[in-house]
């Protein structure tokens, strides 16, 4: 079984979903989510919110400076 799997892997035939044990795939999937969600759930540094607020404020000032463009 493992010989055949290796051969399939090497041939790189594209649709070879059966290469891995579903349990292994599941375990990798869980770890991937754990890795990613760990960062997603981390607190967002304030600097990003500050940056976006500054960009928005600059835009408002620009619009205010050229009232004709507001239409």
């Amino acid at each position, binding site marked *: 079984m493992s010989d055949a799997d290796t051969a399939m892997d090497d041939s790189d035939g594209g649709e070879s979903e059966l290469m891995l044990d579903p349990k292994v795939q599941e*375990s*990798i999937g869980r770890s991937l989510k754990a890795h990613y969600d760990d960062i*997603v759930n981390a607190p967002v540094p304030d600097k*990003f919110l500050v940056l*976006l607020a500054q960009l928005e404020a600059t835009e408002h000032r620009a619009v205010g400076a050229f009232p004709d463009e507001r239409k």
Partner: protein
Amino acid sequence: MSASEFKDGLIKEIPNLRAFAASLSGSMQLADDLVQDTLLKAWGNSEKFEPGTSLRAWLFTILRNTYYSLYRKRGREVQDSEGTYAERMATHGNQESHLDLADFRKALAKLPEEQREVLIMVGATGLSYEETAEICGVAIGTIKSRVNRARTKLAELLSIGSLDDLGPDRKSAAAMQRVGSEIVGL
């Protein structure tokens, strides 16, 4: 879409951008620089975003292009001098999974870039194969084959290639070696 709606959209995507950037660059510090560049570019090009399409896919495209044009080399240098984030990063999940997560991240960092990015996009970000293919500028079949190779390589690196056979064998082989060396030691 007003500037403030666009801003709110960007704010919502920041956590995902950080997670994707960290997965690409292997460094939380580089990831945050990358996210900052991405936000600036997104803001400057907001008129190019088509409302109704996926903002996440649009931002990931910008982030990925920025990474490959500017950050890739820096990423390797940072990893060489400071080690990967896998070794340094504080985790926010439960303590029990901490060790597993660190091991997984080390293995993930060893994957070729083109495999790692698609595995993350397809397996963790909620992006579809179609969106992933579009972001990477390749065919869906190519994405599928990279995902497969990435999974196989990860399983290999984590020694979970065949849970039922290899794992216990390796454990007992290691145990026997220990016993053997103890005996020799005596």
